[in-house]
């Protein structure tokens, strides 16, 4: 009788074929076709002009993922040590920002990082900007002295009349936006893996004389790797393909892959073939990275996703 119940999946299988598989095939076909419709590899050749964007996207996404891991792992570890009541509240606090749209969270940072924004107002009031001018002056003098003395050509033109620190529309702001938006995606999988660890293993390690640091290095960390891998995936993929964060915090100066793809489809430079080719290459690179990483970590990550 098994077969009869399996028919229940029929409608959804048809739906997937139409709206998941067919569109992806279409992307592949578009990537290999010219505007007229014939087969061509031109789209991939054209992509070499955007090499900088590829490098920048992967670089910023990697930095953001690394920072998320650096903050997220200790946070998850500390949370797991707390009592159940505390943990419940901490979980709510981690998840609450995720339920606000990421555009609003990014917008919040715009008003903080602006040239006349809240952070610069604060720096002005506390005198950090004056301090910055002072330090720049010293550095200029120092470099000028070294240049005279040793015949170097160090920069002596640091701004000593700054009224604000330039924070918005820099790649740093884009990375900050990624970290802020996707940090919970790193914390949650790591936390759930650490919570599920078999406590008798930790006790056994301690009974056998391992120090706290050694228990962490030899038992807890290796066993939490699936969570780490799943966290890395969940932060890296949206970071590398974002276009709204770079638009809002990068101000259009820091073009990322997402922006590039968006422009080919909805922008003035309509070129669906090129856009498809870029999407295809981006996904392939991401997939290869994931594959290598899973090999490396003996991936059990899909089990952790839940």
């Amino acid at each position: 009788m098994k077969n009869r119940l399996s028919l229940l999946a029929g409608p959804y299988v048809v739906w997937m074929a139409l709206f998941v598989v067919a569109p992806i095939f279409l992307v592949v076909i578009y990537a290999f076709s010219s505007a007229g419709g014939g087969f061509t590899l031109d789209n991939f050749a054209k992509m070499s002009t955007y090499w900088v964007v590829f490098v920048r996207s992967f670089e910023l996404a990697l930095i953001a993922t690394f920072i998320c891991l650096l903050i997220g792992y200790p946070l998850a570890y500390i949370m797991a040590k707390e009592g159940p009541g505390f943990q419940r509240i901490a979980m709510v606090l981690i998840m609450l920002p995720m339920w606000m749209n990421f555009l609003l969270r990014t917008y919040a940072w715009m008003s903080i990082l602006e040239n006349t924004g809240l952070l610069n107002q604060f720096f002005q009031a506390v005198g950090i900007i004056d301090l910055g001018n002072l330090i720049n002056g010293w550095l200029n003098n120092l470099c000028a002295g070294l240049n005279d003395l040793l015949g170097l050509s160090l920069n002596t033109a640091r701004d000593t009349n700054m009224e604000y620190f330039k924070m918005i529309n820099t790649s740093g702001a884009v990375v900050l936006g990624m970290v802020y938006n996707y940090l919970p995606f790193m914390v949650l999988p790591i936390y759930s893996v650490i919570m599920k660890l078999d406590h008798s293993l930790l006790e056994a390690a301690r009974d056998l004389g391992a120090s706290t640091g050694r228990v962490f290095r030899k038992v807890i960390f290796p066993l939490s790797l699936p969570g780490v891998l799943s966290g890395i995936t969940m932060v890296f993929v949206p970071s590398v393909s974002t276009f709204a964060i770079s638009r809002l915090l990068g101000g259009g100066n820091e073009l990322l892959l997402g922006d590039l793809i968006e422009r080919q489809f909805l922008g003035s430079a309509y070129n669906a073939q090129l856009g498809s080719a870029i999407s295809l290459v981006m996904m392939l690179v991401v997939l290869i990275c994931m594959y290598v990483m899973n090999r490396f970590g003996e991936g059990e990550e899909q089990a952790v996703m839940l």
Partner: protein
Amino acid sequence: MKQRSSILDRLFMGLVFFFLYAPIFLLIIFSFNDSKSRTVWQGFTLDWYVELFQDSAIMSSIYTTLLVSVIATVVATVAGTFAAIGFYNMRRRWRNPLITINNIPMMSAEIVMGVSLCLFFVAAFGLFGTAAQWLNNTLGTNLPTRYYLGFPTLLIAHITFNTPYVVLAVMPKLQQMDKHLVEAAQDLGCTWRQAFWKVIIPEIKPGIVNGMLIAFTMSVDDFVISYFTAGSSTSTLAMTIYGMTKKRISPKINAVSTLLFVTVLILLVIVNVREAHQAKAKNAARS
């Protein structure tokens, strides 16, 4: 994890939470600011909330968001539950590839999903147009020959990315279910239909509810896929917000954020208090 956390741990945690919440609180504070500025405080006002409710573009986009989310969630919950039961009863040879395809929308970058659906809809509309033209010419009908992205395509896209989450939430509940339950029910004279409604569905209900909630939040929260599939005439709340942040700054965005934050906060508190009560009641009943 028996050791207690130190002051340093607590401090670190406090700093991270400060990092997470300071921007949100600043956003909320400036929604009451009596000035267009989002950085200089000029006094308290509720004007932005009044303006928000009078802004027809925002109000209609909220309506669109809720409508598409509710319909997509209902369809995705039903389709996903049936699909999960179907997958569970399949042979492994069929099940595994289908589940892999099911995971594609979740694993791939949102922008790729959006772009591929956009391409697909445009291509399909081209075909429809040609077919309509042919019908008009040969049969003398008067079908429209041009189609545009709009609410229907938005809805299809939402169903497409929602259903995998429902499948993923229901599957584990099916695997946890005692395999012999259905057989036992049938031995006791149950028909297939009764076994389905009275045995399987109640067993996997927590998974269905869970999947439904995830689907709804995903739908309300989505920006990227909607952006590529809604066309120019339809706009969800996230798309309207994106348009506003791009054009000019208005504290109305702050007001929207505050209302959303409060709504989510209240919902989360209710859910958690209820869970805590249930856990307590269970413990009390046991002792």
